[in-house]
């Protein structure tokens, strides 16, 4: 009996001690594993190239979190050269960083190397442009969905019942990139359902606005009654918009494209060069990739063990809904 009382008193005392402690707050026991697990980790980002809105935006957001949480973020800039990107990846497989973030120039070039990296124990996240090989995670736009939304918007403008010619031009970007292939499939699927839609041109501008402009000038000569244009990227398709405006047809031809929601894109809508941008919202994507970086670094799963995708939300930007704060500027993200 006595022993029990003493034990009970002791436990009560302990409880009391605990209670007084609680008044000083609690040291969150799950904090340390979070920070310790990230400290000193090495993350390497291989973009298509630095120096344009998408990659500069993501990099600004990723850098901020890296500095904040104490892991390093390096950027190997292949500057639009698939060769240089492949070399960087090969070198990284030997260097064994903790995590590689790859922005694929096309669906094939990096595919085998990304698999080799995972086999070597390096986790891999693919950002906004995926390859045919699924890796630990993909964070970015769902290009098929972007394509379906774009095509539906054009069908609404130019399809049966619109009273227009139904003539549509497709401006592709880099014909081997994920965005291009998945979008094209969606366009073709959607347009096939409406017999009044005619695809009169399908040319690649390789992300170059000057090339998009030259293509559109020629197409407009052939088809003065063109009804709509659907393109791969706002930075490229602004060239097509300029040709349409120069021909005085800005009100007759509806230009649909997609982009990162940068202020320049919004400005081009205000200028009447573009009509609809499906924005994959770079700041949102930046936050999503940051979250995925932390999760991948902390997860006990081995590289390549579990594969997830997160398709980032899409916003539709038109003349009617853009305001002063709809689009982002790089300085805001830094």
């Amino acid at each position: 009996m006595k022993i029990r009382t003493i034990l009970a008193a002791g436990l009560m005392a302990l409880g009391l001690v605990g209670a007084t402690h609680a008044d000083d707050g609690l040291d969150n026991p799950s904090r340390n594993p979070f920070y310790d697990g990230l400290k000193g980790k090495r993350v390497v980002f291989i973009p298509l190239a630095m120096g344009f809105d998408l990659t500069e935006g993501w990099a600004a957001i990723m850098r901020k979190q890296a500095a904040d949480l104490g892991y390093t973020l390096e950027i190997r800039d292949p500057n639009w050269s698939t060769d240089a990107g492949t070399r960087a990846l090969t070198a990284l497989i030997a260097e064994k960083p903790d995590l590689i973030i790859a922005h694929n120039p096309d669906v094939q070039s990096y595919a085998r190397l990304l698999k080799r990296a995972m086999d070597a124990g390096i986790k891999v996240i693919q950002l906004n442009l995926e390859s045919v090989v699924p890796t630990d995670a993909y964070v970015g736009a769902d290009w098929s969905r972007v394509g379906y939304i774009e095509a539906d918007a054009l069908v609404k403008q130019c399809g049966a019942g619109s009273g227009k010619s139904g003539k549509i031009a497709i401006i592709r970007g880099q014909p081997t990139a994920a965005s291009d292939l998945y979008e094209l499939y969606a366009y073709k699927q959607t347009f096939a359902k409406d017999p009044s839609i005619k695809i009169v041109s399908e040319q690649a501008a390789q992300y170059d606005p000057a090339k998009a402009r030259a293509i559109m000038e020629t197409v407009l000569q052939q088809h003065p009654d063109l009804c709509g244009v659907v393109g791969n990227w706002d930075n490229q398709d602004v060239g097509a918009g300029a040709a349409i405006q120069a021909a005085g047809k800005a009100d007759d031809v509806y230009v649909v494209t997609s982009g990162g929601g940068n202020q320049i894109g919004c400005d081009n809508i205000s200028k009447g060069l573009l009509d609809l941008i499906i924005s994959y919202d770079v700041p949102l994507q930046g936050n999503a990739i940051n979250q995925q970086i932390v999760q991948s670094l902390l997860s006990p799963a081995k590289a390549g063990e579990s594969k997830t995708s997160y398709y980032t939300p899409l916003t539709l930007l038109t003349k009617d809904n853009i305001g002063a704060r709809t689009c982002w500027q790089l300085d805001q993200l830094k």
Partner: protein
Amino acid sequence: MGKMRLSQEGVVFALAVAMFAIFALTLNNFLTAGNLIALVRSVSILGILGLGMGLVVIGRGIDLAMVATMVVSLSWVLSMAQAGTPFETALAYGFLLAVAIGLASGILIAYADIPAIFTTLAMGLVIYGSGRAFLFQIDVQNTPAGVAWFDFLGRGLLFGLPMPIAAFAVLAALIALLLLRTRFGRFIYAAGDNPLAARITGLPLRPLIVVQYVVSSLIAFLAGIVMAAAVSGMSTRVYNSTMIYDVLLVVVLGGISLSGGRGGVRNVLVGTLLVGVLLNGMTILDITYTTQNLIKSLILLLAIMVDSFINPRDEQTSQQSQGDI
């Protein structure tokens, strides 16, 4: 040489005319004024660069740094203008940069005797790399608003022709005068035909080579101004495209021999015309990207084969070290 000898220029011109005729007969709206203007307009910048490249190739050199010079000098100008430098001042800096690039290439080629193809290939990389590292951060530079003459250069009309076409025409006339009517022009032909003989007869061969590269650099700068005005900006990604090979295509296709000393402005015009007809026709026919590239490269290969068949390399050409590529 007999009058019947087939010149490459003649072959290419006939080919361009034939293609033109076929497209005119088979494609709707090919032969409209609007389409023809669009056709020439789409290749006028290529043509301007071709004039510079042609001049250097006649002097038995090659300038693979032209696209890099164009992209970097103009991107620098535009980024300075955006940062608040008066546009004209920025242009003056860009002009000086282009001169400096031409001088550097020319001196390395003329005085250090490094083959032009390697010097300018490397120079292109150096220019582009240092531009990206030190001169501007963003790879697409927009033109400043409110510079009236610059907007006119991009969108204005001269005698009903869009300015890029007018600029191409004026520059072509100037270069033709330079090559045919000035001593400098005749010297370039002499040096290109046989550099050693030219030197023995007392031509200032090395300074002459330096000046050629300065001229080609300045033409690249001019092409940049026209391009920036026409598309309201300059994308440095142009450097990564196949543009420099398209410029070579125009020159070689037109019949300016890579072994130097032959050809003129007319050849550049013919080459530009053929490429223009080809690109326009292929776009109208909606030929796929890959097939277009294949057709273009096959034609370049064919032109180089015809070039070496019509202008065969003999013992004399192969023994000359200067600039033979």
